[in-house]
């Protein structure tokens, strides 16, 4: 029943009292930290969240902090202070462990979990259990491992180099850079004049292909860029029913 008080304290709107309520209940031995089921706690959290009409980050923040707090209380009860170095700045930092397929799996981890479970079910005995050496002993790295690490590093280097070359290959060709650079008002004006001329003859939508000097990709892009400028300036509209189909240009107001 007292555990319920902890849940209520966390999920209530009061931001000040909840931490002291938890400490007070544990200090007065009204609640055993081992009785606080963190999975039930997350269920309570999800229920609360589903009831909320709007997102309340304050509750999420409280829940994360409360879970960390309770985990630390439980850890301290285990006597494994060394195992959790979350708040003591003067202690050495937790080693950054990157996920790796060959990552080392701590064989002691399972033992620690079993030990925690054992203590949970034998609360009377919990203070009698001596903490064990929880950090596994480390060994020297061999030159063979150094060589295999080098092999891997060189592979990464080569892979990155291949990627870099591949990216360079798809870089926009020089001509397009030139086209972009030289996309001066005169170029837009020339195309504009051409469009007006064609529109004057047909009074209909103009097929983009009719503007091309030749069919190559570069010429297509070079011609299309000024069209985008003209369209952006509201002088024409571009139509294409489906991707990769013919592009039609409609000169707006007849005289742009």
């Amino acid at each position, binding site marked *: 029943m007292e555990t319920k008080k902890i849940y209520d304290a966390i999920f209530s709107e009061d931001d000040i009292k909840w931490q002291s309520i938890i400490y007070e209940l544990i200090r007065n031995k009204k609640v055993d930290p081992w009785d606080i089921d963190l999975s039930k706690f997350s269920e309570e959290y999800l229920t609360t969240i589903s009831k909320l009409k709007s997102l309340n980050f304050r509750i999420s923040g409280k829940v994360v902090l409360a879970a960390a707090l309770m985990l630390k209380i439980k850890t301290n009860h285990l006597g494994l202070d060394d195992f959790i170095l979350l708040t003591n700045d003067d202690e050495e930092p937790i080693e950054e462990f990157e996920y790796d397929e060959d990552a080392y799996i701590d064989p002691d981890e399972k033992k620690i979990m079993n030990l925690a479970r054992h203590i949970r079910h034998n609360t009377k005995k919990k203070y009698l259990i001596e903490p064990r050496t929880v950090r596994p002993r480390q060994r020297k790295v061999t030159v063979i491992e150094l060589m295999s690490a080098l092999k891997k*590093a060189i592979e990464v280097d080569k892979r*990155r180099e291949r990627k870099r070359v591949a990216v360079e290959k798809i870089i926009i060709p020089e001509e397009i850079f030139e086209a972009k650079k030289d996309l001066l008002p005169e170029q837009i004006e020339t195309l504009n004049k051409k469009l007006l001329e064609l529109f004057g003859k047909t009074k209909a939508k103009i097929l983009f292909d009719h503007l091309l000097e030749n069919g190559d990709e570069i010429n297509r892009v070079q011609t299309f860029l000024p069209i985008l400028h003209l369209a952006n300036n509201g002088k024409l509209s571009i139509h294409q029913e489906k991707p990769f189909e013919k592009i039609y240009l409609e000169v707006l107001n007849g005289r742009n």
Partner: protein
Amino acid sequence: MEGIKGQIEALLHCRPNGLTLEEISNHAGVSSKGLLKKLLTELQEDYSERASGLNIINQDSIWKMSVKDEHIETVQEVARPEISTAVLETLAYIAHKKSIRQADVVRIRSNKAYGHIKELIENGFLESKKDGASKKLCPTRKFYEYFKLTEDQPLE
């Protein structure tokens, strides 16, 4: 004296990362550093004389209980290496190049390399020299001693 030696041995056993003389002095309640040094050296000799799988080493003023080199292969699967895989790859790459700009290492090994380099410099495997806006990294004497390599030996 044997009692204190036992205390030191227990301390070294419980702290895989090793202890400084100061820490040993605090935990064992022995203020004389000279005595502690003498006992540590004796302990070192005891271990090297008997057919033990362990030895006592003094690495950068840190006293450690460590597995003897000839048994490293045996414990390879059981004990965690002192240098993590990713950090070792960065170290190997730098050592292979002999001398390389930090910026180039980061370009090849990603931003994580900053952390790796920091750790390797702190552990004395790398040294960093200023090179314009960037830094030049090279392996230290400790690196060559640790892996039993010579500086002129190409790493490939």
